[in-house]
């Protein structure tokens, strides 16, 4: 049961971590795009 709870914890933290990282990268790409246009 402990391992199942651990796997669920890893799932939400893992997916959350991936999305947060991707959103940061998207923000950087957006800013680079804006700077490039100026």
């Amino acid at each position, binding site marked *: 049961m402990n391992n199942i709870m651990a796997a669920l914890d890893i799932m939400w933290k893992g*997916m959350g971590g991936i999305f947060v990282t991707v959103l940061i990268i998207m923000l950087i790409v957006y800013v680079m795009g804006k700077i490039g246009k100026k």
Partner: protein
Amino acid sequence: MEFLVEGLKMLTWQQLVMYGIGVLLIWLAIKKEYEPALLLPMGFGAILVNLPASGVLNQILPGVGEAQGIIQWLFEIGIEASEAMPVLLFIGIGAMIDFGPLLSNPKMFLFGAGAQFGIFAAILLAVVLGFDLNDAASIGIIGAADGPTSILVSQILNSNYIGAIAVAAYSYMALVPVIQPFAIRLVTTKKERMIRMDYNPASVSKTARIVFPIAVTAVVGLVAPSSVALVGFLMFGNLIRECGVLTTMSETAQTTLANLITLLLGITISFSMQADKFVTINTLMIMLIGVFAFVADTIGGVLLAKFINLFSKKKINPMVGAAGISAFPMSSRVVQKMAMQEDPGNVILMHAAGANVSGQIASVIAGGLVINLVTSFLG
């Protein structure tokens, strides 16, 4: 003359099974052209390491002592010591990737993230089936649809099943044209698959192409330090490609380096395909969990696209979400082919390509996070 049949007398039925598996992998590589660069060396290596008292493995020779075997040595140096082979291969992979379709359409990044869902779903399934957490995580990473990431994570987590995981990862990457259409049709309607998307890419400056790999390395490295080797070398390869002043080096990375490492990696991985570790019920379970991971990846990406469509005026073809897995460029081509089957003239390839390359980055992030999270539980 008994010494001539000593080898035969040591043969086990499990080793015979491995000869069959080796021949099957070679057949899949040659006849079906399923990832031949990996499956052929793995198949041949599986035969080499399973010959009784094989000289490619370390052996204790009477009166002489230990004789080192080349495949075991390659494994200890190239994989066990610092995961050198998969990491070096990433230089070549990074040099091959054009992030242009992604940089000009950054929304596609989201699907690279969504399509990693299968990794975590597979970890959960593996745990429910009784695998230890480190083995479950290593098995789950098959869902990253990336051979080097799978090998690196399973090696760092000290999994007992590296061989089965590597075979599953590479086999299923080759089977994307079979697995993904099945999974996509489970969760989409024909109408959804016929959605057309405009392609109005933003221009991407050379500066952006150069800054991107550096920025990604920094961000991902700070979030998931265990992924620095993978993401760093991937982005290093990409930087070599995009800088514009290292053309010869870029070509070398994409061709000679990538081919050399791939050649050695395949035969080296066969070290973990020794019969006593490979011919077990767990290997079969790993193969099944691996399919589940790929299906769950595909469904995760598609459902994310459908979710975004609830709030978006410009609808996204949900199949683009499926292209967020790391199997580049296979997945984007599969999605385009399905789109054309439903609606000839529907071109969504560039959107799918953007999602597909984002999957490469997201899978590396996933690998690093899995290592961090699992080791914090085990510690």
